[in-house]
């Protein structure tokens, strides 16, 4: 039996506008922490290069291997580079790449998943088999495979991220379509002769929005991880790129002399990924239908 009594006389709610979502995210300690972390890193990415005290590759031979001090907040590495500045530049580097890559993957995946799921039929079945096969290969392996074969081309990393994450976003979008397709309001739209485009984009897509947002946040976290891991392995990025993973790898040899050169970028990666994960978890709890 459906509930007959609800809150009456309430002014129309802006249930899912970004501001409301943000406020709700800050309502719980875990997601508040996560969101704050993400916002701070975003800020770092935006203005980092402007406020960085030193250049990203600026080597000061006289100040190598210095411990953290007021001059060098995170110390200097074995080449005399300021670790703090490099971390700041690295933020922009990784966030831009991960952000753009995820955004494109979500765009592509959503479009493919929505269309394929709505049309159904053999094409949909076949496409999903292909995607399932791609998902059979672990992401890092697939990325390595693609990069190893393509070589250090420009934008290779970006393309790899999009390629690696589109299938799973498509699957998620498709499963939403399948569950919404049979609902009354979609059938009502069909009954009034709405075009397929309208139905997919105005009737079905909004319902997919919460799921896709959460999935996007998760992919973002995985993308950051992937870029850092690739950097650590030295694939797809070359020194002196301020990729945090690469910085960790470089600093490993000198870890006894300049441990901060390793731990600072490592900390940056860890904190950021944890922050995004907490925020994604918070998003899942917080995104609701308008008016609810």
């Amino acid at each position, binding site marked *: 039996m459906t*509930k007959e*009594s609800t809150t009456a006389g309430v002014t129309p709610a802006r249930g899912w506008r970004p501001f409301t979502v943000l406020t709700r995210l800050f309502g719980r300690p875990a997601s508040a922490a996560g969101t704050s972390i993400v916002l701070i890193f975003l800020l770092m990415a935006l203005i980092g290069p402007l406020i960085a005290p030193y250049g990203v590759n600026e080597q000061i031979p006289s100040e190598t291997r210095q411990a953290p001090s007021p001059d060098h907040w995170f110390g200097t590495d074995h080449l005399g580079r300021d670790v703090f500045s490099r971390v700041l530049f690295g933020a922009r580097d990784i966030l831009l790449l991960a952000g753009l890559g995820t955004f494109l993957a979500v765009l592509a995946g959503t479009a493919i998943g929505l269309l394929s799921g709505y049309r159904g039929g053999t094409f949909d079945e076949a496409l999903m088999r292909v995607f399932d096969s791609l998902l059979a290969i672990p992401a890092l392996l697939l990325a390595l495979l693609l990069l190893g074969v393509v070589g250090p081309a420009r934008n290779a990393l970006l393309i790899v991220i999009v390629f690696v994450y589109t299938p799973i976003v498509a699957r998620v979008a498709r499963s939403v379509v399948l569950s919404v397709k049979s609902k009354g309001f979609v059938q009502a739209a069909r009954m009034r002769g709405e075009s397929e485009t309208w139905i997919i984009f105005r009737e079905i897509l909004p319902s997919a929005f919460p799921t896709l947002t959460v999935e996007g946040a998760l992919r973002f976290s995985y993308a950051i991880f992937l870029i850092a891991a690739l950097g650590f392995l030295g694939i797809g990025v070359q020194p002196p790129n301020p990729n945090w993973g690469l910085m960790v790898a470089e600093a490993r040899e000198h870890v006894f002399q300049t441990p901060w050169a390793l731990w600072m970028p490592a900390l940056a990666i860890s904190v950021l990924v944890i922050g995004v994960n907490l925020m994604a978890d918070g998003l899942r709890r917080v995104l609701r239908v308008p008016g609810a």
Partner: protein
Amino acid sequence: MIPALSVEDLTVKYRNGPGPVTAVREVSLEIQPGEVHGLVGESGSGKTTLALAVMRHLPEQAVITSGSIRVDGQELIGLSPERLRPIWGSQIAMVPQDPLSALNPTLRIGKQLSERFEALSRSDARDKAIELLEMVQIADPARVARSYPHQISGGMQQRVMIAMALSAEPKLLILDEPTTGLDSTTEAVVLDLIRELMRARQTATLYVSHSLGVIAQFADRLTVLYASELVEHGSKMDLFENPLHPYTCGLLDSVPRLGENKREIQLRSIEGRIPSLEDLPSACVFAPRCPVVIDICQETRPALEGAGATRQVRCYRWEETRAGEIDPRQPPAPPPLERPTIAETALQIENLEVRYDQPRSLAEWLRRSPRQSVRAVDNVRLTIRKGETLGLVGESGSGKTSLAQAVVGLVDSARGRVELFGAELPTQIKHRDRETLSRLQMVMQNPDEALNPYLTVGQSLSRPLALLRGIHSEEEVRRLLEGVRLPPEYADRYPAQLSAGEKQRVAIARAFAAMPGLVLLDEPVSSLDVSVQASILNLLNRLQTEHGTSLLFISHDISVVGYLSETVGVLYLGQLMELAPSENLFDPPYHPYTEALLSAIPLLDPKATQERVRLRGGIPSSLEPPSGCPFHTRCPRFIGDICIEQTPPWQEDKTGKRIFCHIPVSDLRREQGQVFAMRKRE
């Protein structure tokens, strides 16, 4: 004699975000051993919370703030889980609403039945399980004991739950809407079983239901709850014959009586909507909707007063009601609406067939075995006249939904000829022009999924206006809302802010936005509260007379269909069994299936007599429909091989009924008596 259950001044609150919400307020009741006590209420009434409280299985957020609950004299509130466990094991038992989800999907039935008897050996436990299954009259109990829940039918699952509940010989049995999810014919059989078992055991029973008919059949005494309060309480006869509280009166009146038709009378519905628990009226909780409200009702909360030896009412004016000075049933049900007769055909269906092909496995494809298909609708012929309603009744598997979806164009695999206002109707939506689309609309079953949650009500309504009639006007949207009796402010609301009944009204408004000539409605009121049903039925009636719209109304509930329709069709396994003018539906001759359906209806009148025609077995699978007459496997009037081998003829009776049966109509008329005798409302 110690009462089996004694609830005193019980108050239960839910801890909710902003503040606590009272779900049950100071409710008291008593059940003696052997008594069946009915707990009646709509959504938000608190009946479920009360039942859960008695079982001491309230959810985390619920708190009992005052009162006492005693079972067999023992106080239950304040007991720790360890102390409660033996009580659950032996004193209280429950039969829930949905049996499938109440059974562990990965344990065999036998094990689930015997596991509470931990001391038994393996073979003894097995025997015990079989013994219990026999008690609830399950055929082949050994096989069922070895089965898993998903392998047995809904009716059998519920019997298992009943057996499980009674196996502990409880002092108190709680039945929480036990038959709501079952088909009518299955429900009748299960209710018979319950009745028999209870009579034999004399167990005290608390029967929670929103169905007045079922309660009328079972209960000795009744408690009526409304928005967390107890409003009336008394014996069954008292409440059904002389209700004193205006809500009880309204509730009883909003159910269409069998034999009444919209051409004779309109249903009385209760004004307004059920208040939300967060926002209850401060004095008398029913005051905003009461037809006989006076000033004091809105100032102070009325106390529960005794109105007889075992009767209580919470109303300031009960004495006036009893004395006949006022009648909460005033104004009387309005007279029927004027309806001109138009002799034009709105919809003509010939030989409609809907098949769903089953996907083939690889092996079958290689072997080139023919595809198995489900014939959801098989060779159906129907006519609907302009301005009239055709009602379709059927249980699960009858094909009623498939039929509607085929007509509306949502099914690609439909075959046959359908004519809408004389013009042939293309099977698929994409082949229909805008004019055709606007003439035919549908309202679906589930109001919660009927509206796009991301569009406001206004946006949902303006779309069909723009698309099908080329109108872009807020004024028109407001008019539509008015037409379904919703305030114009609702245009800015989102569906999440509406109640189920309101959502259904918007869905109806949306269907009527296009000014259709024919609207199909698939179980539009089945999931709604009884009092809301009446207002929606009245609404449909009014829209029909105002616009001359024809309706195809599908439901499993014969009484509702009988009220709203001019003609009624009975579907079974995709075929029509009977087509009757509604005024003759309840008189013989009947198709044997109709006879069984009519005898399964729980009658609202406790004094009415009813024939008991029960069907054996369950509904056959649509994958392998029976040959000849599809009903022959269960027909109580089965006459022999002819029923198995030959398709029955359509026979016409002089009253205008058409019956699909081998038995000659005259024989039926002679052998069948009136299924029930009911008194009409005064």
